[in-house]
């Protein structure tokens, strides 16, 4: 079987490359951490990979809007390669700063397969501050998103100061009606947060935490699934583990919902034979 090669962007203040590379590796891909300038210079070719990850971090310090300068740089230097990558049926994931970059490039939401238009924005949290907190997410089962197949609910941490998804109401309505909204903030039962803090940590319209393009192959989200690759990452793990132990069970060998998301991507590429 062909190997699945995942490219994880690095450099210019990006910082989740290590754990993103790790999770792709344990999901069955070969992880390649590639400096943005290696793509710009042509030393590394995007076409040699099947999955592209725009990871978290503070690209260019997020000084002029989160993910803005990164988006410009990618668009200017490898814009065409990105579009061919999408055309070839490959997968792109953008997490946190990477989601912001995908939005600013225009790869998301990708209405009518136009992957260059900015019509969504991710702005400052309503709470006015950076916030690190675990959130409950509920998944839209009708969404075409490749990454979330078989996932009903997920807990991941958010860690951002700018995570509020906004757009004009027509755009939000279309995202909802075309099932491009993948993850929404919810309570622990899966009921939508309806904007209430802290279940919705940033005030995102329609509780949106993650969206995909119409094909489901480009996916962006504010929470960090790559931060939940080990059972001890979850804030409740020690309580769960203790209670399970009393039933003679253990958490240790379960695949986390973080890993599952990446494994979905790797399995898709394997099945597609790309």
């Amino acid at each position: 079987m062909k190997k699945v090669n995942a490219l994880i962007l690095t450099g210019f203040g990006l910082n989740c490359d290590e754990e993103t590379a790790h999770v792709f590796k344990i999901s069955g891909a070969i992880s390649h951490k590639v400096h943005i300038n290696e793509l710009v210079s042509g030393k590394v070719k995007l076409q040699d990979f099947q999955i592209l990850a725009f990871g978290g971090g503070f690209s260019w310090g997020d000084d002029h809007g989160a993910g803005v300068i990164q988006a410009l740089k990618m668009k200017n230097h490898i814009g065409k390669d990105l579009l061919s990558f999408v055309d070839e049926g490959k997968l792109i994931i953008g997490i946190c700063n990477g989601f912001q970059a995908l939005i600013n490039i225009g790869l998301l939401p990708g209405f009518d397969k136009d992957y260059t238009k900015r019509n969504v924005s991710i702005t400052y949290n309503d709470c006015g501050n950076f916030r690190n907190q675990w959130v409950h997410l509920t998944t839209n089962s009708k969404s075409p998103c490749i990454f979330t197949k078989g996932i009903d609910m997920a807990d991941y941490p958010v860690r951002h100061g700018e995570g509020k998804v906004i757009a004009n109401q027509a755009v939000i309505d279309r995202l909802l009606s075309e099932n491009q909204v993948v993850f929404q903030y919810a309570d622990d039962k899966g009921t939508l947060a309806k904007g209430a803090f802290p279940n919705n940590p940033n005030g995102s319209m329609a509780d949106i935490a993650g969206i995909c393009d119409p094909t489901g192959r480009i996916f962006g989200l504010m929470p960090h699934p790559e931060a939940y690759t080990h059972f001890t990452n979850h804030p409740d793990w020690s309580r769960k583990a203790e209670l399970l132990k009393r039933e003679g069970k253990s958490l240790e060998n379960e695949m986390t919902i973080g890993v599952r998301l990446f494994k979905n991507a790797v399995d898709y590429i394997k099945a597609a034979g790309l």
Partner: protein
Amino acid sequence: MTACIEIALKKELRDAEGLSLIKKAGSYFGVTIQEARCIHIVTIDSDLDEKALERAKDEIFTNPVTQVSGLKPLDIDFDWCIWVGFRPGVKDNPGATAMEAIQDHLGKTFDPDEGIYTSKRYCLKGETLVREDVEKLASELLSNSIIHQFRIFSKEGWDKTRGADVKPAKVILDRTPCFQIIGIDSDEALAKISDERNLALNKKDIPVIREYFLSNAVLESRKTKNLSKPTDVELEYISQARSDHCNHNTFRGIFRYKDATTGEEVIENSLFKTYIQEPTLRLKDKKDWVVSVLWDNAGIGRFDDHHNYVITGETHNSPSNMEAYGGAITGIVGVYRDPMGTGLGSKLFMGSFGFCVGDVNYNGPLKPPLHPRRLLDGVIEGVKDGGNKSGVPTTFGQTLFNPGYMGKSLVFVTALGIMPDQVKGKPSHEKRTNAGDLIIMSGGRVGKDGIHGVTASSESYSENTPAGHVQIGDPYTQKKMHDFLLICRDEGLIHYLTDNGGGGLSSSIGESARFSNGCVVDLDKVPLKYEGLDMWEIWVSESQERMTIAVKPEHLERFMALSAQHEVESTVIGEYTDSGKLHIQYKGETCAYVDMDLLDKGFPAWEFDAVWIFPEARGFTEPVISSPSDFNSLLLHMLSRPNICSKEWIIRQYDHEVQGGSVIKPLSGVKTNIPSDACVTRPVLSSKKGLAFSQSLLPWYSKIDAYHMMTCTIDEAVRRLLSVGGDFNHIGGVDNFCWPNIQFDSKKNPDGKFKAAQLVRACRALKEACEKYEIPLLSGKDSMYVDGHLEGAFGERIKVSALETVQFSATSVIKDVAACMTLDPKASGDFVYVLGKTANELGASEYYEIFDKIGLNVPQVDFEKFKVVYKALQIAIENRLLASCHAIARGGLGIHLSYMAMAGGLGMELDLSALPMDTTRGGLHNETLLFSESAGRFIVTLPPGNKPLFEKLFKGLPASCIGNVTDQHDHLKITGLDKKAVVDLSMNQLETAFQKTFGDMI
């Protein structure tokens, strides 16, 4: 041509920055603002034409979905407008990234005299706003005169076309760099120059310096380079190297320690050697996990068969005290360079903070440089930006309030890194420079910022303290450098590296050249932020985000190629030699030429008189307070006190999970809102091993005796580690001393001798604790002048000194993180045990502080007895007998039972009469049992089935079952010695009290 782009959020969108201003204006100053909108201004000083500017505006700086912008002032209505920009020369991070963006997007190359500067203006609407209010907001909330400038516009005074008329904050020095020859005809002459130039030379060093430069051999040798008398570059070099910050003169000084009661006198020749170095070296021999201590930028311990961890801790007090944000961000970004520059370089994997500030609600007459509230806001934000943007999780931290810190606040920052134990088959912790190696400076450029930072932090704060040493750290530039250097390390391109921190190149090159025994440096090669710096300024500037690296000539090409790829500036600025000389040139002309061993030439040790007076002799007694009758209200009051209550709002601003290794987070419990004992991180994601980290601060005990402050602080740090599953056989320590001035002066520092004795006692305690618990000190630092002279109501200045403070950090390696513990009780029916005895030890406790009392019975540590309990506890945790574990710390049992109850979200029923007790220090009452801060104690819960094994393990040890966890109610119910109810509080009551103090902060 200068152009200004103004950018604002669309009118209908919420302006978070404006809302935050409205909130603070109201709560801090009682100023009502109806509406506040923030406009970002990008001032471009370049030859870009109108078309290019339009493109930059639209394509780079404006988000089409959320923002509006213009090359003309935006027409946003206001009653008052405040413009705030940086002063020239202050690091403008967004300005620098704007240049990168324009360079990339428009293909524009910026000339040295072009630049981009960012600023903001705030449009305020408020019917009642008057100029005085607006000035207050501008000067006390939005700007700090040290780094900012502001202008205020009234509605009437605003010109809609000119707008704020922002000029580039460009530095123009307009001078030809030079060096000066300094006359050293007499000691007095040199002392005078030292004062004039702010060299802070010690009086006793002056004759040694003169003797060196006046000796014939030196004069002969200098003649060959056309030098005779010392240059300013040379004296600055000596000043930096001999400063207390770099040389630790206090800890290497001679103390005449006298016990006032017995009259006995002991001479302490070096606190460092006796109490830190010797015990640590002995322990290093005993503990094979200790890899490298006492010489490098940070200490190194073994993590697993292939990795070592690196740790160090720093303070950044003086700068933070004047410019809180700048000081704190520079502090955390700065301490992160230490592990980066340890051995051949490590990857950062966690950091922590410790803030000690005055009362945030202070409204007395004293005028600190920054009000504690503003200072705390600033340091929180500084560590947030510095830590988060570095991509390093801030996994632990404490915030502490005491009036003594109004004189000078403390900002502790700690950094941990991880490195492979081998690089290209060689040990990664070893490094040296060799003759022929190139000296490379990588990272940021050099400017006037940070000059004389080291000498300023070695002095008490006064109105004459130069403000020029306050900087703003740049985590973005440093993160690029961090990633770049790790790749260079792995390719074997680095032979030595160290950071440029205090003392700049003077320290980094001065110290690294000692290995090869010489260097030649061409200062004219050093990249500058702007022209016009004198040689000595380039040499000692502390401009941040720079590393000094030794690279072999054959590796230069590859090194530079990687540097270019990462867009990190690297420059060859000289060469290491074996000439025995530190040789500095500027365009070929020698401006410094001294022997490498100059600093070993018999500079005298500092001397201190220390007089210890026992607390009894100082008149300390136990206060007379009868037993309270309303324990419910008392406990709720205790929970709401600033040093006990929730500081969740601070911790959540810090990314504590980036890098994916989080196991025990800074907050635990069903609502993840109770402070954890310690944090645990997996720095190697493929491994199940974890690194546990804890810190303790108990400065209050210094009021009675700094000896017990030290032992209790270390004991608490150790118990915190053990509580999460730490290994008692592997505990590494880091000591961070912050002390008021100890040099006696009958007028300026009349209690200096006592404070010196406190320091000696703390060091003795440090050694005892480290030896008994077998803790090698992997790293440590001291900051010795924690005093301020604050202006009072009548124009007088009052000296305010901080409590003698030590932050102790502890590390341990956990074999399998699956065994880690948290403090939350997990199941109804579980038993609650207390380990360790409670004694009448309320001295300097939180309880006594309510009544403004100190008392006498400070908690004491009985190392031998405690150790046995700790080892048994470790076995219990490793064998998974426990469901939860928590170290009893500040506030005592009552507070820590409350923490556990809230963390578990379950009821608890407890009986104080069942506690293990120690009556040797006096009788025990309900309040002593609830609030005594006796060391050596834990609360644990366990399932009933584990009781027999647990009790067998603790047979003969102080461990008693005091009650159980229940889901029948959600109350904390405690009965007293007479079995009658003393506390019965619902979860809701506890949480309300715990949250309310800072409840509206997010």
